[in-house]
């Protein structure tokens, strides 16, 4: 049975474990129909031209974890930003781990999607927000919607700021089988609220893992959301990340994506600006090698006037790795005085590495400032010699140049300990023991 059929037939089993009378289930039923019609995206679709899911579909993924696993904090501590205190929403093989988590209901809700979807006290919020910005059409998103049951639920009321950053971590242990996960996150920042989130998917097994994640973020008037995605998984793990952001007047949402590990990574990052004076920022550093594949598809839809968007993606590709950057900017006719900036710079370290980069601008307003640029280059040999001539070995000199090429993306990271961690991950990825302190 192919993966699509398996998923569709698993939906029946899934229904035995959820409340089918909950209105949420109508949403799921609608979604599985869409997925059944569309199936997995094929390379014939323009948006999937350079990213093939064919190989993954041949794997016999288990749709539900076979048995529950537990993990000791000391064994997985290194995946947390443990230098600081954080709220933690942690899942093991898709199942909430209460002993690794630190949730709260103290003035803010930092807890579980499974509670939010089932408990009456959350119904009003779920009615307003659940599946409201996520696509009802894109097949992998609808696949996730169909199986949506667990994930992080974060609700920050008006004028509130949680005491500390929030970490959302998904561990997979494999439990001797290949596993497909469908985490579903809902994040709501009410007026004037502010939060910082770090998200990570980490496989602890060499069994294949495929995560198809959907995150909906709602930023109300003047809310501030900083979202950091740390993608440094093992090379048997793949991730399709579908993130949808709905922004209202004066809100600032930043998403940083650090892609260093994993077999296949596809980031679909969609921003909808439903208000004025909105700022949307998307930044990324991608450093990959071997046969890794990272695909960033971004969309920012400028719907109202006087808004800004900033995109800055840096990519470094070694060995036979492949990269894709596709940045779509839509500026509606009434969205005058829009400022939209997009930058994608890449370095190819090997002859066999490739990058496909494409800006896609659809601008219908006439009074806008829009700039985009993409570059593909190599390391500067002269700069390399300069560093070497000062006693810095070639490998370290190359690493320093690569770090220098990408590090402006880190300027907007507002959690210093996270910045240090990213520096370390970059040094590891480049195989050097350098501090990279600026």
């Amino acid at each position, binding site marked *: 049975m192919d993966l699509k059929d398996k998923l569709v037939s698993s939906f029946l089993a899934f229904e035995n474990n959820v409340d089918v009378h909950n209105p949420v289930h109508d949403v799921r039923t609608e979604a599985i129909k869409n997925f059944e019609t569309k199936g997995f995206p094929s390379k014939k679709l323009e948006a999937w031209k350079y990213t093939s899911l064919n190989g993954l579909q041949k794997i016999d993924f288990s749709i539900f974890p076979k048995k529950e696993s537990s993990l000791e904090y000391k064994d997985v501590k290194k995946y947390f930003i443990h230098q600081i205190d954080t709220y933690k929403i942690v899942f093991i093989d898709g199942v909430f781990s209460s002993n690794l988590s630190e949730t709260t209901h103290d003035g803010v809700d930092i807890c579980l999607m499974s509670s939010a979807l089932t408990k009456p006290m959350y119904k009003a919020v779920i009615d307003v927000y659940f599946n409201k910005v996520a696509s009802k059409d894109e097949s992998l998103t609808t696949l996730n919607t169909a199986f949506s049951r667990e994930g992080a639920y974060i609700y920050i009321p008006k004028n509130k700021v949680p005491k500390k950053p929030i970490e959302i971590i998904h561990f997979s242990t494999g439990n001797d089988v290949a596993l497909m996960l469908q985490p579903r996150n809902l994040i709501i920042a009410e007026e004037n609220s502010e939060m910082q989130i770090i998200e990570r998917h980490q496989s602890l097994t060499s069994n294949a893992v495929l995560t198809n994640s959907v995150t909906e973020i709602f930023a109300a008037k003047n809310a501030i959301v900083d979202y950091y995605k740390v993608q440094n998984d093992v090379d048997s793990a793949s991730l399709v990340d579908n993130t949808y952001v709905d922004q209202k007047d004066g809100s600032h949402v930043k998403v940083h994506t650090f892609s260093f590990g994993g077999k296949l990574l596809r980031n679909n990052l969609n921003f909808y600006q439903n208000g004025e004076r909105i700022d949307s920022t998307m930044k990324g550093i991608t450093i990959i090698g071997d046969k890794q594949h990272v695909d960033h598809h971004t969309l920012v839809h400028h719907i109202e006037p006087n808004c800004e968007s900033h995109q800055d993606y840096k990519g470094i590709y070694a060995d036979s790795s492949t990269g894709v950057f596709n940045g779509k900017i839509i500026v509606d006719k009434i969205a005058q005085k829009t400022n939209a900036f997009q930058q994608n710079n890449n370095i190819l370290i090997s002859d066999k590495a490739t990058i496909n980069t494409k800006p896609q601008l659809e601008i219908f307003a006439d009074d806008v400032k829009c700039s985009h640029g993409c570059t593909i280059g190599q390391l500067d040999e002269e700069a390399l010699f300069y560093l070497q001539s000062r006693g810095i*070995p070639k490998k370290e000199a190359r690493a*320093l140049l690569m770090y220098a090429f990408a590090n402006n993306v880190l300027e907007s990271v507002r959690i210093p300990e996270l910045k240090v961690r990213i520096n370390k991950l970059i040094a590891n990825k480049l195989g050097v023991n350098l501090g990279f302190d600026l």
Partner: protein
Amino acid sequence: MLGVFRLIKITLKKEKNNKEHKSSDKMLKIKDLHASVEGKGILKGINLEVGAGEVHAIMGPNGSGKSTLASVIAGNETYEVTAGDIFLNGENIEDLSPEERAHNGVFLSFQYPVEIPGVSVTNFMKTAINESRKAKGLEDMPAKDMLKLIREKSELLEIDRKFLSRSLNEGFSGGEKKRNEIFQMAMLEPKLAILDETDSGLDIDALRIVANGVNKLKSKDNAVVVITHYQRLLEYIVPDFVHVLYNGKIVKSGTKELAMELEEKGYDWIKQEAAV
């Protein structure tokens, strides 16, 4: 065709195997050095000996190969050494990478220092010093010693502290770049310093500061090779020997009086002599 190439490669290798590995232990000894880039010969048989405690000046018209010589000594692989040898303290350095040459005390002050956005001067110097220490089996320099050293050397070259947190050479004026090169030299304390047109782009005050920096570092144990067009710098850094490089060869050597003669008469007479 392929066969022919292979043959040539093999003979070249043979020749290299016959090379001398040891020489007298002058600090720097260059014997019959030929180098080319993209098949074009640039250095055409350089012979030069520099002893510890000496200052040598290399002068010569533009395009004669001065920077190429400096680059080849520092190990720049853009240039292919087609014949000849370079010995450092008696050891043939042909197989040493640029960083290994640096660890052995070679320093090149670049004619055109490279701009490196995203790497601060301080971080660069820390990395350079600690990597050199690592190569010698030493621990990283303690942060406070590093700061002290940076403070001391930046004061010597009258470099503003703010300057040190800026990206290396990015947006620096010509003079700032050169001063920064000598600051790096002061930090690294090389045995053999090659200063490639360090005077160009410097006003008279900066020239004095730079020359003072170089002179402070001079001792009987290290040597300086000054590449310059002008007599001006040589008034501050007084050479023991002056060489004229023209068309890939040292065509004339002398003492500091030769530099003055060149200043007066220009290079035409050298070119004419060389043509004969």
